[in-house]
Structure formats: structure tokens, C-alpha cells
């Protein structure tokens, strides 16, 4: 029996049992439709798509992609589109109310095939058709406004500017990432039938939820087989980015501390318009979060030198994916400080004056750090002795803040502003140190006065005892 005959036979069976099925599987009467023909249709009747697509007997081995399995149906229940009331025809088009296969899939009814002729169901859908299918709604502000007052509708436009979109447009590369690659499941496998389990971005299980983005990107970008042959500006794209990012301060903040503001892939590369930042744009990418540092850096001569030498801004000193927590040891000319890499040997036109500035800044940072450390130790000592010292302890935070400010200002690569910030911190820490020292002196003072006050107490006790001895013995 051919597939066509099977479909006709099943359609006949369905017609006989339609009322019962309709009662069993109610479909939202006013399920919203996408723009275009489908949207103008009357409210959807029974969703007949699943009567065939949900029946395993209907499909040959080479058409298994068209079979909607129980697993796919289960995934659909969690799908954001399904939850919003959208059904098969709202994305795929066609007529869901008819049992006639050709009418159901008529292109004049808006049916959108994901494959070109001749259709090969053993392979994944064509990437460009997937993007266009999603974009049909997601790039339409009139339509998307139904679900959110100010929705994003620039994803499709952005996509075509991304590395993925450009490759797709230029070469039609079937491996290239499309919407479902990130929002649904990895594309490209022979078993891929499209799970349809697209979750809302803020759903913890979504592959594009903040904590999962990097892993989702890594499915391709950490796979040597997938990435083989891909280049950017003549350089291989590589597969170490995810591994490096996992070891970075950003990943630690996001994955270990649970700080959802910490950056993952899309914060620097963009998401729908994903592309590595150009050499001159690295500081802007970092500056999206580290705004003050970026604005200081933008005003420096160093920035222009970096651009002339094609050095990638912030990443020159801090690296790109494997960014480590910065420390004062990075500044200066000794002990592996990053400044020394250029200023030691005049590389890229680095000057001796710059080297001296680096040394001065490092000495200032070390000085304030040591002062803060000493003050903190004194406060801890006083606290251990039971002295109330919460106010100086709180004030010491201002010195920490001044130190942080100096560390920020050093990105201006000028000594004066850094020294001004350090001076603020030193003023605070000197006051705090004085109060902490006073607390220790006060503690000693109390002990002395305790001893002194016990003397009269003991004298009175002694006198009382002596007087008691002079009293007549009671009988």
C-alpha cells in the first residue's frame, strides 16, 4: 500500500470518528494565527494535522521526519508557541480543517514547506527556510505586539548580518546555525525531526537561558568536526573558546556565584547577529559592562596605538575568553606585569615614561593595599578583644572603594588621577587606623582602670571583714 492510499484510508476512518476525536482533543477555539492568509482564516477547527502526522503507520521509513512521535507531542506541551495557543498550521501554514491531504498542504492556503523540490525527508529542513519561517512572525511588529507591548522584531534582520546568516546567504551551508539550532536542539543530525519544544528565553530549561547560552554555542563551536574549515579574517575559528571561558572570572561569576549579570557568549558577540567584535570594537564590547574603564581607555593614546598595531584593545592585557580576575601584579614592570610586555623593550613604540608611570602606579596601589591590610588586622584584633569597632570597620570600606577607584583610573594610564584616588583612600585608612589603634589603647586603659577600681573594692571588703571580727559573737 502506498503512502497516499494509507492517508486516504486513515482519512476515511477519521471522518467516521471525527465527532469523538473532536471531543477528546479540544483545540483552543480562538487560537491566534500568524500574519498573512492563515491569520485571516476563521477560528481553527479540529487540528487534523496530528491525525496523520501523529500516526506512525502513515509514514515510510524515509519519511519518518514527518511523524510526530509521543516524545515530540510531550515536548510540544512545553513549547512557548503551543502554550500561547499556536498550532501546527500557525507556523507551517496550510489548512488544518480539511482531511484532504492536498488541500491541507496547498501553497495557496499559505502552506510553507521547509524543503525545496525534490523533497528529501531524510535530511534536516533547509536552514534558510527555517529562518524565514520563524521570521514570518518574529519580524512582524504588528503580529508580535499581541504577545508583548514592545517586542523585539529585529532578530531576522540581525541574523542576516551575523556570521551564521552571512555564511548561509553566501554559501547556503547546511551546517550553519539557524533559529532552532539554539532555541530548540542542535541541528544537522540525521535523526533530527525538530522537537518543537521551544521554551521561552527566561525558562530555566531553555538552551538560551543565560546560564546555558555558552553550552549551547559550544555544541558547535567546541566541536572540531563541525568547526573544521571555518575561518574569520583568514584565521581558523578554533574550538577552545568554551573551555577558556569556563575558566574565566565571568564564567565563575555566572555559573558558580549565580550572578546573572555576568557575561556569556552573546554579551560580547551578540546573539542573533553573532559576530566576533572587530579589533577596534573590543573595548566597546567590554565597555558594555565596564563602562567607566572603557570611557577612560577611549581617551588614551594607548587606544590609538593599539588600533594602529591591530591589538585587540582590552584583550591585549586581559585576554579574551579566559579572562582572569585582575590583580595589582598586572601593573608595573616587574614580576610578569603586563605593562612590561611592551614597555620593557619599546615594542609597538612603548615609552620609558610609560614604564615609569606603571612603576609609580604599582607602588601607590601596593602602598594603599598594605595600609588597608594593616588597618584591617588592627580592627580584627580589637574585635577579638571585644571592643565595639563596627563604625571604623564600615569606614574602611571607603578605603577599599578608593583603591578600586584607583584601579579603575589606571586605565587612563596617567599617574595624577590614580594618585588622587589613592590619596582619598590613604586619608580614610589613616583615620580608621587611628580609631582602631585607639580601641586597642582603650582596651588596655580599661584593664588598668579595672585593676585600679578593684583596689578600693578590696580595701572596703577587707575593712568590712575586720569590722565584722570586732562585732560581739552571736549566741
Amino acid at each position, binding site marked *: 500500500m502506498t503512502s497516499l492510499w494509507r492517508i486516504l484510508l486513515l482519512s476515511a476512518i477519521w471522518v467516521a470518528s471525527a465527532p469523538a476525536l473532536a471531543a477528546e482533543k479540544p483545540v483552543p477555539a480562538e487560537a491566534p494565527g500568524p500574519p498573512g492568509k492563515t491569520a485571516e482564516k476563521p477560528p481553527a477547527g479540529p487540528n487534523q494535522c496530528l491525525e496523520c502526522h501523529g500516526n506512525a503507520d502513515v509514514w515510510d521509513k524515509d519519511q519518518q521526519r514527518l511523524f510526530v512521535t509521543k516524545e515530540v507531542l510531550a515536548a510540544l506541551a512545553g513549547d512557548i508557541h503551543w502554550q500561547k495557543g499556536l498550532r501546527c498550521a500557525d507556523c507551517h501554514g496550510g489548512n488544518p480543517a480539511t482531511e484532504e491531504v492536498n488541500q491541507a498542504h496547498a501553497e495557496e492556503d499559505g502552506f510553507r514547506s521547509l524543503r525545496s523540490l525534490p523533497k528529501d525527508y531524510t535530511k534536516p529542513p533547509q536552514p534558510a527556510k527555517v529562518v524565514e519561517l520563524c521570521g514570518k512572525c518574529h519580524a512582524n511588529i504588528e503580529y508580535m505586539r499581541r504577545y508583548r507591548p514592545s517586542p523585539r522584531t529585529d532578530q531576522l534582520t540581525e541574523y542576516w548580518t551575523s556570521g551564521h546568516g552571512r555564511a548561509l546567504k553566501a554559501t547556503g551551508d547546511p551546517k550553519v546555525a539557524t533559529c532552532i539550532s539554539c532555541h530548540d536542539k542542535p541541528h544537522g543530525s540525521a535523526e533530527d525531526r525538530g522537537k518543537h519544544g521551544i521554551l521561552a528565553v527566561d525558562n530555566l530549561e531553555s538552551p538560551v537561558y543565560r546560564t546555558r547560552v555558552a553550552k549551547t554555542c559550544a555544541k558547535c563551536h567546541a566541536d572540531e568536526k563541525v568547526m573544521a574549515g571555518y575561518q574569520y579574517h583568514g584565521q581558523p575559528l578554533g574550538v577552545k573558546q568554551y573551555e577558556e571561558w569556563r575558566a574565566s572570572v565571568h564564567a565563575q561569576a555566572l555559573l558558580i556565584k549565580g550572578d546573572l549579570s555576568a557575561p556569556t557568549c552573546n554579551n560580547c558577540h551578540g546573539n542573533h547577529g553573532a559576530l566576533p567584535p572587530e579589533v577596534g570594537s573590543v573595548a566597546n564590547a567590554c565597555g558594555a559592562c565596564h563602562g567607566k574603564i572603557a570611557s577612560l581607555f577611549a581617551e588614551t593614546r594607548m587606544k590609538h596605538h593599539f588600533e594602529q598595531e591591530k591589538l585587540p584593545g582590552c584583550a591585549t592585557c586581559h585576554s579574551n575568553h579566559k579572562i582572569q580576575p585582575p590583580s595589582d601584579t598586572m601593573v608595573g614592570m616587574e614580576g610578569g606585569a603586563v605593562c612590561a610586555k611592551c614597555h620593557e623593550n619599546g615594542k609597538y613604540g612603548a615609552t620609558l615614561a610609560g614604564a615609569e608611570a606603571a612603576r609609580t602606579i604599582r607602588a601607590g596601589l601596593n602602598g594603599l593595599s598594605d595600609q588597608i591590610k594593616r588597618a584591617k588586622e588592627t580592627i580584627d584584633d580589637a574585635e577579638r578583644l*571585644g571592643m565595639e569597632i563596627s*563604625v571604623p570597620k564600615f569606614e574602611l570600606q571607603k578605603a577599599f572603594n578608593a583603591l578600586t577607584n584607583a584601579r579603575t583610573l589606571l586605565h587612563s594610564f596617567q599617574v595624577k588621577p590614580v594618585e588622587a584616588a589613592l590619596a582619598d583612600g590613604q586619608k580614610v585608612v589613616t583615620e580608621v587606623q587611628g580609631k582602631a589603634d585607639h580601641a586597642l589603647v582603650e582596651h588596655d586603659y580599661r584593664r588598668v582602670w579595672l585593676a585600679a577600681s578593684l583596689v578600693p573594692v578590696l580595701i572596703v571588703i577587707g575593712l568590712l571583714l575586720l569590722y565584722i571580727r570586732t*562585732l560581739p559573737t552571736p549566741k
Partner: protein
Amino acid sequence: MLAFFVERLGLDAALALAAKKHVPIHRTTIFYFLGGMALFLFGMQVATGILLSLYYKPSPDQAFESVRAIMTEVDFGWLIRSLHVWSANLLIGVLFLHILTTYMMRAYRGPREFTWITGVLLLFLFLAFGFSGYLLPWNQLAFFATRVGTAITGVVPVVGKDLLLMARSGEDVTGDTLARFYSLHVVILPLCVFALLGLHLFLVQKHGMSVPEGAVERYGSAEKVPSMPFVPHFLLRDMVGWYVALGILAALAALFPWELGQKADPFGATPEGIKPEWYFLFMFQVLKKLPPQFLSIEWLEGEMVGVLFFGFCGLFVLVVPFLDIGRRTRRVLNILAALAVVFFVVMTARGLSDTVDDWFAPLEQWLLRFLT
């Protein structure tokens, strides 16, 4: 000069009473000093409490800051606060000993039943003083300990919910609770204590000092037991004790100033290892270790049984004079008292030390097998 005041203030009656008052001399005379010591420490509480109230601000926004200011900015504020807290702790300890020694000497015998009852009620009032005062600095430890402590009232059957709302002045510990505890600490409890203490001292004067049965047997009758005049013999000895207590308090305040901790954060997580003051620790330990249900009966909740048990114990202690009606009941009472003292010491030690807690863990497991 003295005659001037005696004539005008009618002090002759008081002087006559003082001259007439004698204190029996026997092996346990030293226990008589505990009452005077408690009175001295109470006086210390009143004096330091009044000084603290000059600077303390009972609102969630200012309470912690005002106590911090007392400790750092007010001259000798640190000393006053430390004296207040240390003397409160010593007072509770002395009261425990006073009650225990009074029980051991059977000083509650007729006609002194009400002297005992007023004494026990005074102990309860001072425990309430401790509980209400603990919250006043509005620090992290006190806030969460009060939250746990007041939650216990909620498990009392029938009236638990109302008791909880009354204690907290709402569903949770808030600024309203602080205001309520402050009022309790500086107005309601002091008034109750002054009234009850007045009655207690009056009864002590009326019935005189109780003479232990052993001393009565040894000398033939209570009248034949040697005694010393209250003034000046006993009073001067009492004063020696007060000066010793003053020296100890000064040393504790100077060497171990009472820490203030962190300001309460009602939205923060409960800090680890919160514990009540040492005198509530035995109850806290018991309630913590009781099984959720007794004998697997759903409505017989462990905490509820624990709270009812301690309520019953308090009532039992209160009516001890009326239960001591013969040799057999006395023997039972003595066994129960010994068990209560051992229980108090062991459970308090378990609350203070994890090592001690581990020692008794197997026994606890064995006992819980019969209760769950």
C-alpha cells in the same frame, strides 16, 4: 542628726524591726546570702537600665545604632551596658541557686508557701526580663532567636496562634514586636517585679528566716538555734558579698565586654548556630531534639508536647509546697528535683558544647526509639 530623721520619717518602727530581726546560724547559713545577692543584682539592673534608657531608642531603624552609640560614644556607656547584661546573667544564675537551696532546706514549709510561690513567680518574671531584653539591641542573633523563641508559643494547643500574635504583635517579628518587648521590659515587668518583690520581702519579714529541720532537731527547737542580729552582723556580711559581686561584674565588663554583633536583617537568612541565652538553652535543646510526632500519632506534635511538658514543670515547681505532704511524697519530690538538676545541667552543656552533645547522642537515640 539621726534623731531628726527618725522623728520626721517614722524610722523608729523600721529600726525596731531591724533590731528584732535575727538570722539563724547553722551549716547552711551561707544560702541565706543568695537572696540578698539577688536583691543587689536587681538593684544593679535597675540602676544600669535607667542609665541605658537615657540613650536607647526603641525602633528598628535606631535601636541598633543607639546601642552602638552607647558603646562607642557615650562616656562609660560600654561599661553600663556590659554591667547590665552581665548582672542580668548573674541574677538569673543566683535566682536558680536561691530556688534550689530554698528547696533543699525545705524553706517552703508552712507558713511560708506563699513566700515560695512569689519567689518562683519572680524567677519567671526575671526569665521574661531576659527574653524581652535580648531583642532590644536589634542585632542579628537576637532577632532570629526571638523569632524562634516566639514561634514556640504558637504550638500551644487552642490558644497558640493568639499567644504568638500577642507575643509578636503580628505575624512576624517586626518593629511592633520591638516596641512591645521594650514596653514589657521597662514598664510592665518592672511594675510586676516591684509588686511581687515587695510581697516576697514582706512575707520574709513576717515569717522570719526558715530554719532547716536538721538544725531544729540538733538544738531541740527553732528558737534554740543560735542566731545573729540582721543589723549589723548579717548585713555587713551581705555587703561583703555585694562588693565581691561588684568586683566580679567590673572584671567581666572590662575583660569580656558584651558584643553587639550585626544589625538585624529581617530579610536575611537565619544565621547558623543561633542559640538563646544560656538559661533557655536546656529548653531549646529539648525542643530541637524532640521527634516531629510522638508515638507516630499525627496530632501529637513533638514541639507541642515539649512546650506543654515545660509548662507543666513550671506549674509543678510553683505548687511544690502543697505536694510535700509526707515522707513518701518528699522522697519522690527529691528524686524529681535531682533528675531536674541533672537534666538542666546536661542539656545546657549539650547546647554549649558539640563534644558533650555527641557524648549523649547514643542515649538520646535510644530514648527516642520509645517516643517515636
